[in-house]
C-alpha cells in the first residue's frame, strides 16, 4: 500500500499542482495575459503543435550537442586537473572566475562571432555545463585513498597504471552524478542563447510569443522545456544507477 503510494507520488504531485493552478486561475479570475490556466497552455500546445515540435527538437539537439562537447571537454580537463596538483592549483582560480561570468553576458559575443543560429546556443550550453563535470572528475581523482596508491606503487605501478586501474574507475560515480546536474544546466544555456538571439528553438518561441502577448503559447513552450529537462535527467539518472551500482552499495559515497 505504502510502496504503491510512493511509486505514484510523482504523478499525483504533478497532477495536483496543475489542478491547484487551474483552480486558482478560475477562482480568482486571473487574466490570461498575466497567467493562463494550464488547460489553456495545453490547448495552445495542441493548436500550435507543429511549430512547438520543431522548436522543441531544435532546443533538444542543440542542448545535447553542447552537453556532448561539455562531457568530452569536462572529462579531459578533469583528468588533467586531477592528475597534477600544480595544474589543479594553477587552473582552479581561472575556472572559478570563468564560472562566475553570467553566460547571458557572453551570448552577444558568441552571436557576433558566429552569427544568429544554433552555434551560439550550442556553445552557451557547453560553457554553462562543463564546470560541474570538471570539478567532479577532478574530485574523484583527488580523493583516492593514499594507502591504495602505496599498495600499487610498492608493486612498481606507474602513475598511468594507477590512473587506469583505480583513478578513472573510481571517478565514475562522481562523473555520472555531475552529468545529471550538467544536463539541466545545458538546457538553461541553450534557452538563454535562443532568447537573446536565434531564429529557432523554444527560447526563441518564448520570446516571440511573449512579444505577441500569446501567453498560453509561452507557457506551453515552458512546459515542454521542463518536460525535456526531466526526460534527460531521468536518462542520466538511469545511466548512473546502471553503471555505478557498486558506489551505492559500498561505503564509498558518490559525488556528495
Amino acid at each position, binding site marked *: 500500500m505504502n510502496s504503491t503510494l510512493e511509486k505514484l507520488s510523482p504523478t499525483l504531485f504533478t497532477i495536483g499542482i496543475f489542478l491547484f493552478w487551474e483552480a486558482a486561475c478560475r477562482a480568482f479570475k486571473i487574466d490570461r495575459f498575466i497567467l493562463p490556466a494550464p488547460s489553456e497552455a495545453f490547448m495552445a500546445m495542441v493548436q500550435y503543435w507543429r511549430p512547438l515540435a520543431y522548436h522543441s527538437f531544435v532546443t533538444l539537439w542543440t542542448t545535447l550537442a553542447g552537453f556532448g562537447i561539455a562531457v568530452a571537454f569536462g572529462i579531459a580537463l578533469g583528468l588533467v586537473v586531477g592528475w597534477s596538483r600544480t595544474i589543479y592549483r594553477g587552473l582552479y582560480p581561472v575556472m572559478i572566475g570563468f564560472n562566475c561570468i553570467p553566460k547571458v553576458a557572453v551570448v552577444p559575443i558568441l552571436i557576433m562571432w558566429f552569427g544568429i543560429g544554433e552555434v551560439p546556443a550550442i556553445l552557451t550550453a557547453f560553457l554553462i555545463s562543463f564546470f560541474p563535470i570538471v570539478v567532479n572528475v577532478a574530485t574523484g581523482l583527488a580523493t583516492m*585513498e593514499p*594507502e*591504495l596508491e*602505496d*599498495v*600499487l*606503487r*610498492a*608493486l*612498481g*605501478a606507474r602513475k598511468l*597504471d594507477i590512473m587506469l*586501474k*583505480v583513478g578513472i*574507475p*573510481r571517478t*565514475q560515480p562522481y562523473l555520472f552524478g555531475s552529468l545529471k546536474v550538467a544536463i539541466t544546466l545545458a538546457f538553461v544555456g541553450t534557452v538563454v542563447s535562443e532568447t537573446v538571439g536565434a531564429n529557432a528553438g523554444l527560447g526563441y518561441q518564448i520570446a516571440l510569443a511573449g512579444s505577441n502577448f500569446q501567453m498560453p503559447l509561452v507557457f506551453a513552450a515552458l512546459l515542454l522545456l521542463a518536460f525535456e529537462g526531466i526526460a534527460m535527467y531521468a536518462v542520466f539518472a538511469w545511466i548512473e544507477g546502471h553503471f*555505478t551500482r*557498486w*558506489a551505492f*552499495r*559500498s*561505503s*564509498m559515497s558518490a559525488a556528495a
Partner: protein
Amino acid sequence: MSASVEIGDVTLTYRGVSGGVLALKGTTLNVRRGEFAAVVGPSGCGKSSLMKLVTGLLPPDNGSIVISGAKVTGPVKIAGMAFQNPNLLPWRKVVDNVLLPLEIVQPYRSNFRREKKQYREQAEALLKTVGLGGFGDRYPWELSGGMQQRVSLCRALIHQPSLLMLDEPFAALDAFTREELWCVLRDLWQKIRFTVILVTHDLREATFLADTIHVMSARPGHIVMSKTVELPRPRELEDCFKPQFIDIVHELRAKIGEVRQQ
C-alpha cells in the same frame, strides 16, 4: 625467493604544513631472509614511516636501506602490502581485486591476457587457503570486515612477493576474527616463507606470529629493544596462555611503558 632487509642508521623528517617533524632518528633494523619480524611501539612513533621507507615510497634523509643486497632508491616493485583498511576496489569482484597486482608486476603483466584463466585459478586457490573458497565472484561490499581483510591479504600475496609489509592489518577487527586471521597468516607464512615486517600495537599478536620483535621508542622513533621469540613452532592459539608466552608479552609491555614515560 624471500628478501633480506637492512635498515642502517636511518633518519626521516616529515615536512608538514607546520614545519618538519622528526619521525625516525638513528633507526637500525635487520631482517633475515624468510624471517617474521614484528615492530611494536607507542602510537605516533613512526612505525608507518618505517613501512614507507622499506618499500621505497619515501627516501630517508640519512642512512641507507638495503634489500637483498641492493640499495633502495625508489619504489621496490616486489613488496606486498596490507593495511588496517582493506582498501579493496568496490567495482571489482573479489577475485579481480586479488588479481590486481598481477596486472602491474612483471612478468605476470605481459602475460596477463594470455594466462588470465590460470591466474584466476591461482587466485581462487589462494582465496580458498584463507577460507574464502567460492567467494571469488562476490563484490567486496558483500563481505564482512574480516573477510575483506582476508582478500586484502590475498592481494598482498598473489604475486609471491619476497617481502610482505603489514601495517596493523588486524587492528580494526573484533577479537575472535583477529585471532582467526593470525592463524591464517601463520599458515600462509609457514607454507611460503616470505619475509614479513608486521607493524602492530598488539603485543600478543606480535608474540604469537613473529620470530623477532623490535620495540620502537616514542618520536623520534628508533629501536630500543629487539627480542627473539623462542617459542616453538607451529604455535597454537592455546600457547597464548602459557607462562612463557605471557612472560614475553609482559616484558614487551614493561619496555613500552618505559619508553612512553620518557
